[in-house]
């Protein structure tokens, strides 16, 4: 590769944005060209300096003001909480992609960005609904706000399941449902209502689904119950002495399908 041509490509080379062929050609050129080699080193060094020291720290007060602004704005548009619907209701009964849904989603999304404050917001908008639902949804929100919702990342049930052994005193259901369109992402431990619970994370397209599990308190199995909170769908059921909660912004129909598979 000509030096002149290589120089044009040094910047995208440093960024890893070249095609494989170009990358190889530039790498080969750099081997034998001290000027280009020095320039690449320089780009790396200045880039590192910028990455390490270039970020202007955000004032704390700004986060508070934003929270207040968005909460005020959200109050104007978030409709009343929808009551739980029976699982037998047609799952696509509600039209989900409506302006009000999107605004709700926007409210959630905007507050997501105000990360540390999300739990407060969820709790603040719940009113009289059950503590447990609040906790489950708050745990779901927390997981989305972290860089990664999982502690053990694997699509392999034989990796995820043993990870929980010794961390929790029951054997959770971990299934590989990628063939059904619910790829397994991983698992983590979480806290809901003061108890340590298992959270298994699945995906459906771009939606993240948390399935929480813990030993149920009452005897017997409970049929699935679907509810909607702040644009999120929740399904709870219990089986074989385990309580399950599935939470996602996924539509209720798809979430019910996952429930059926678990």
């Amino acid at each position, binding site marked *: 590769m000509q030096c002149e041509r290589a120089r044009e490509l040094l910047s995208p080379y440093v960024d890893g944005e070249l095609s494989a062929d170009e990358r190889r050609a530039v790498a080969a050129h750099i081997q034998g060209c001290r000027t280009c080699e020095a320039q690449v080193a320089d780009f790396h060094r*200045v880039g590192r300096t910028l*990455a390490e020291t270039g970020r202007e720290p955000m004032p704390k007060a700004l986060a508070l003001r934003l929270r207040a602004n968005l909460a005020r704005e959200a109050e104007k548009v978030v409709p009343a909480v929808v009551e739980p619907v029976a699982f037998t209701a047609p799952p696509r009964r509600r039209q989900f992609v409506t302006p009000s849904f999107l*605004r709700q989603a926007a409210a959630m999304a905007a507050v997501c*960005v105000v*990360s540390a404050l999300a739990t407060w917001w969820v709790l603040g908008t719940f009113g009289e609904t059950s503590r447990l639902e609040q906790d489950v949804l708050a745990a779901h929100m927390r997981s989305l706000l972290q860089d990664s919702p999982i502690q053990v990342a694997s699509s392999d049930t034989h990796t995820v399941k043993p990870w929980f052994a010794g961390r929790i005193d029951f054997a959770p259901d971990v299934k590989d449902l990628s063939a059904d369109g619910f790829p397994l992402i991983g698992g983590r431990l979480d806290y809901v209502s003061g108890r340590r619970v298992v959270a298994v994370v699945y995906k459906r397209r771009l939606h993240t689904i948390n399935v929480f599990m813990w030993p149920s308190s009452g005897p017997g199995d409970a049929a699935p119950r679907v509810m909607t909170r702040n644009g999120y769908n929740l399904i709870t059921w219990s089986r074989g002495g385990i309580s399950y909660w599935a939470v996602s912004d996924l539509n209720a129909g798809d979430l019910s399908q996952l429930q059926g598979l678990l």
Partner: protein
Amino acid sequence: MEAAYNLAFWLVRSRTDAEDIVQEAYLRAFRAFDGFHGEDMRPWLLAIVRNSAYRWLNNRRRSGTVISLEEAFAEGSEENIDQLAANEPTAEDRLIGAAERDYVLRALGELPPALREVLVLREIEELSYRDIAEVTGAPIGTVMSRLSRGRGELRKVLARLIEKDEPDAV
């Protein structure tokens, strides 16, 4: 949100103005959420922040306190990086010292906004070219050439700042 504030700050280079811009941008994003159809919210949100910042810069320009963006952007645009690349490899060694970070940040501040923003988005926020293209509304090829030029210019300004402060060093 840190990325939003950081981008606003580097564009307008004032903390209080950056705060106002972020607040305005978030409310606009919130109200315009129906218009969001992408997969990743971050570039979309940063594009709104960027638009707010540029509107603010344009207002300031109209009030006559700074040179125009177009002028700022055009300046030096004909120069290419060959010249810089022709510098002796030893020259950049001097760029690296105890004070380098101060120089790098000062130099970044002196670049025209169109080059500054792509460097901020790439080096600090680590966005892909595709995402930077979405934020800036420019084609990916333009993003690539601006980054290339931005890095070249940054190097040149760095050398100039260091020479000015430490004439003996260069």
